[in-house]
C-alpha cells in the first residue's frame, strides 16, 4: 500500500542490457514500507476485532492480546508508529520535490484514465496489449492516493475518538460518534482494498519482490513499466542534479524541514497526550444509601387482655369463685386444664383440692403442705405467678381456701 511519491531517481543507466536490473525503491523507502505495513496490519487487526467485537474470532484475538483494553493499547501504539512514518514520509516527499526536483510520477494524470480504458479494452479482447505504463500505473496511483486519503481520515477521526473531551470543546458532540462511524467504514475499505487490489496486483498475479529487494529486472520493466523503461533508455527522464546544486538546495531545505519536523512531531505528541485522562479510573458509586436500615420492629401485639373471670354472684373476692378460679385458669390452665399435665387439673375447685399425681395442690389452712405453693415458691415454673399473686394465694389457703 505504501507506494511513495515517486522517485524516478534510478541511476541513469548507460546502455540497456538484457540482464540489467534497476533500482526501484531505495533502502529508506523499503524500511518505510515495512514499518507502514507492520503498523497498518496491526491497526487493521486490532481495529476490526473491535468493530466486530461480538464474533468468536474477535473474542479470541482480543483474549490473546490482553482483553479489550490490551487491544486498544496495541492499536494506539501502532497508530503512534504510523503517525511517525507519515511525518517522515511528508518530509521525504518534500525533499524529493524541492531538493532532488524529481518528476511527479505519482501524480494522477489524464493518461491514467486512458490506460484504464485501454486495459478494459484489452480485457474484453479489443486490444492485443495492455496499456504501456510509466513508473507508476493507475493501480499503484490509486493505492497511493487511498493511503493518503485513508491516513488523513483515520488520523482526524482517530484523534476525535482518542480525545473526545478536547474535540467536544470545538465541535458538536455528535462529531465523535460520526468520527467512529467514519473510522470503521474507512478501515473496512482500506483492509479490503489491500486484500483485493494490493494482494492481487503485487502478490497473486506475480509475486513482486521489488519493495523488499529494491530491484526490478529489465524483463519486469518491459512488462510492467515499458514507458518508464523507454524514458530511462533514451535518457529523456529526470537526471540527478549535480552535487553542488543539491547542497545549495539543501541549505534552505534542511532548516525548513527541521522546523516542520518539529512542528509535526509536536502534533504527534499532542495527539497522544493532549487528553491524558478522559475519564476517571475509579468506578462511580452505584447506590449511595446505607444497605441495612431496618424498620423499627413493630412492637409485638400486646397480649390480649385476659377475659374477666366471671364472678359468681355473691362470692367473696378472696375465694375460689371470686378470684382464684380465673387466676389459675389464665396462668396455669394451658397445662393444668384440659390436658391436666401431671394429673393436675385446676379448672374446678374439687380437682384442685384433689391435686395431681404428686399429691394435693391445695391443702386448706396449710400453704406449706400445698404443692402449688411449693412449686410456685421455687420459681421458674412455666406458668409462674407473680410474687403478689403468690402471696394472695398463700393468704387464701391460710384462710382455709374458701370456695365461695
Amino acid at each position, binding site marked *: 500500500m505504501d507506494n511513495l511519491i515517486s522517485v524516478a531517481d534510478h541511476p541513469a543507466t548507460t546502455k540497456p542490457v*538484457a540482464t540489467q536490473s534497476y533500482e526501484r525503491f531505495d533502502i529508506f523507502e523499503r524500511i518505510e514500507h515495512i514499518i507502514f505495513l507492520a503498523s497498518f496490519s496491526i491497526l487493521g487487526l486490532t481495529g476490526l476485532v473491535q468493530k466486530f467485537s461480538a464474533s468468536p474470532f474477535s*473474542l479470541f484475538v*482480543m*483474549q490473546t492480546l490482553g*482483553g*479489550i*483494553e490490551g487491544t486498544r493499547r496495541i492499536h494506539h501504539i501502532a497508530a503512534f508508529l504510523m503517525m511517525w512514518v507519515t511525518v517522515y514520509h511528508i518530509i521525504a516527499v518534500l525533499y524529493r520535490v524541492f531538493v532532488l526536483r524529481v518528476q511527479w510520477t505519482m501524480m494522477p494524470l489524464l*493518461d491514467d484514465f486512458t490506460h484504464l480504458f485501454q*486495459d478494459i479494452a484489452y*480485457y*474484453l*479482447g479489443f*486490444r*492485443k*496489449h495492455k*496499456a504501456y505504463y510509466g513508473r507508476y500505473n493507475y493501480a499503484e496511483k490509486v493505492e497511493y492516493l487511498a493511503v493518503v486519503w485513508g491516513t488523513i481520515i483515520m488520523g482526524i477521526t482517530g484523534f476525535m475518538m482518542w480525545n473526545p*473531551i478536547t474535540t*467536544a*470543546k470545538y*465541535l*458538536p458532540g*455528535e462529531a465523535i*460518534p*460520526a468520527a467512529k*462511524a467514519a473510522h*470503521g*467504514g474507512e478501515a*473496512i*475499505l482500506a483492509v*479490503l*482494498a489491500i486484500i483485493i*487490489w494490493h494482494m492481487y496486483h503485487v502478490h497473486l498475479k506475480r509475486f513482486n519482490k521489488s519493495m523488499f529487494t529494491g530491484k526490478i529486472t*529489465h524483463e519486469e520493466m*518491459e512488462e510492467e513499466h*515499458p*514507458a518508464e*523503461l*523507454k524514458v530511462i533508455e533514451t535518457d529523456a527522464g529526470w537526471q540527478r542534479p549535480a552535487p553542488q546544486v543539491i547542497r545549495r538546495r539543501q541549505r534552505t531545505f534542511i532548516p525548513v524541514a527541521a522546523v516542520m519536523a518539529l512542528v509535526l512531531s509536536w502534533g504527534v505528541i499532542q495527539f497522544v497526550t493532549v487528553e491524558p485522562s*478522559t*475519564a*476517571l479510573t475509579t*468506578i*462511580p458509586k*452505584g*447506590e449511595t*444509601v446505607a*444497605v*441495612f*436500615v*431496618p*424498620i423499627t420492629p413493630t412492637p*409485638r401485639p400486646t397480649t*390480649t387482655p385476659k377475659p374477666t373471670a366471671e364472678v359468681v354472684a355473691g362470692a367473696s373476692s378472696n375465694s375460689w369463685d371470686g378470684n382464684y378460679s380465673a387466676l389459675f385458669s389464665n396462668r396455669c*390452665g*394451658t*397445662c393444668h*386444664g384440659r*390436658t391436666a*399435665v401431671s394429673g393436675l387439673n385446676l379448672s374446678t375447685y374439687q380437682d384442685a383440692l384433689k391435686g395431681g399425681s404428686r399429691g394435693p395442690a391445695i391443702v386448706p389452712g396449710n400453704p406449706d403442705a400445698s404443692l402449688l405453693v411449693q412449686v410456685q415458691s421455687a420459681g421458674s415454673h*412455666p406458668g409462674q405467678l407473680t410474687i403478689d399473686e403468690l402471696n394472695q394465694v398463700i393468704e387464701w389457703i391460710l384462710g382455709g381456701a374458701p370456695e365461695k
Partner: protein
Amino acid sequence: MPARRVTLLLALGILVLLIIASVYPLLKTVAAPALQDTPAATAPVTPTPEPAPAATQPPTGNLSIADEVCLGCHGQPGQNMTLQNGDILELYVPAEMHQGSIHGQLGYACVQCHTTVGEYPHPSFSATDRRNVTEQLNEVCTRCHRQQNDFAKDSAHEAARARGVREAALCVDCHTAHEVRQLHDPRTGQLLEDVKTWIPERCALCHNAIYQKYQGSVHGSALSEGNPDVPTCIDCHGVHNIADPRTNSFRLKSPEVCAKCHTNPVLMSKYGLSTAVLDTYVSDFHGQTVALFEKQSPDAQVNKPVCYDCHGVHDISRVDDPHTGLEMQQNLLARCEVCHPDATTNFSAAWMSHYIPSPQNYALVYYVNLFYKFFIPITLGGMTLLVVMDASRMLINRARQRRKTARQATQTAPGAEPVIDMRIPALADTAATGTPVTPQPAEVEASVVSPPVNTEQPESTGIEEKAETQSNAPDQPASEPPDGANSSDSEVEHG
C-alpha cells in the same frame, strides 16, 4: 445385500433416536434447578422464582397430634417464655393465623414443622435471645424446601451471616413463620398480583432506606399505583440466591438484568419505550467494553458505566423528568461529569442517547454511515471487477497458448502425445530448449521497446484496433494462427 444394509441402518437410526430420547429429559432435569431460581432465566413480565414448593423430604414427628392439641395451649394469648437475655418470646399462635397461611390451607399440622415438641411435656428449649430462636428453627423449613434453602446458601444474606451478621435474613424473616403466603398462581406459575407489592415491603424490613428510594423511582411509584409490569426487588436481585450487588461481576452483568424487560417488545410497546436500548448501548464505546469484559473477565473492575450509573440504581427516574431525566442534555452532562470531570457542554451529545442514527436524530452519523454504505461497495466493486477481468484475460490467454503449443507438438511429432505445459510460456520455452533466460528476452525486447513511443498519440486518438496493428508491427502476427509460437509467447507475456 443392500436390503440388509438398509435394515441395519434403520435399526441404528432408531437406536440413536432412542438414546437421544432417553438422555434428553435427563439433560432437562439437570438444567432445571439452575433456571428455577435465577431471575435472569425467567419470564420478564412477572418472574417465577419458584414454580411450586417441592416436598423433598417427608416430615417426621408425631403426626397423630392434632393442631387442636397444640392450640389448646398456644391458641390462647399470654403464652410467653422468657429467654436468657430477658427477651420475651411469645408462644401464642392464633388459630386463624396458621389456618390462613398456605401451610394451614394445605392442612399441614403444627407438629410437621415443630417435630420435637409433639409430646408433652415439651423437651427443654433454651435460646440466648429472640434471634437465636429463629436461627435454631430455620432448619425446619429445609425439610420440605431444600432447593430454596440451597439457593439461599449462595446468597449475600448467607455470606453476611457467615461474617457474623446475625440480622442477615433467614427464611421466616421474609416469609414469616406462621403466616406463610401463597406466592404463585399454581396454574400459571406466575406471581400473584398482590404479592408484587408485598415483596418490596418484606425487603424493606431491613432495607428501608433503599425501599424509600425505590418508592420514588419510576418503577416503585408505578407499583404503588398497582402496575404489575414493573420490576420489584426480586426481578433484579433474584429470589433466594440473591447475589451481592456490589461485586464487579454483578455490575458487569447488570445491563442484561435491565435488558430482560427493556428488550421485550410486548412490554415496552405498552409504554412507548425503545427496545434498542441494549443494542445501542453495546454498540457504543462504554457498552462494548462492558460487554467484552463480561464475556472475557467477568470479575474485573471496569470504569465504563453500566445502565444504572447513568439512570440511577434504586431511584431510576423517567428520562423526561425535568430534574433528573437524561433526556435533558444538562442532566445528562451532570451524569457525564461524574466520570469525565473535564466535560464541557458539547460533550454529552457524543453519547447518542440510545438513538439509532437517522435523518432526524444524529443525522451526521447517519450520513457518514450512508456514505460508506455506498462508497465501500462502489470502490471495492470497481477494484474487484478490474481484478476479475485482468485474471480472466490472463487465464484465457494461457489456455489458448496451451492449446497452441499442444497443436504444434502434434504437428512436429505426429506420434507423440501432446505435451501440456502449465508454466509461463516464456519460461517453458527456455526450459525446453535448455538455454538460459538471457537470449530469449532480447527478442522479446525488440517487440516491446518500440511501443512506448506510441503510447500517447495513436492509441488515444484513433480506433484502437487500427492503432494497434500499426504500432505493434512485430507483435501483430501473433494473433494469427499460422504464425510461430515465438510471437504468441510475447503476447501472453503482456497479459
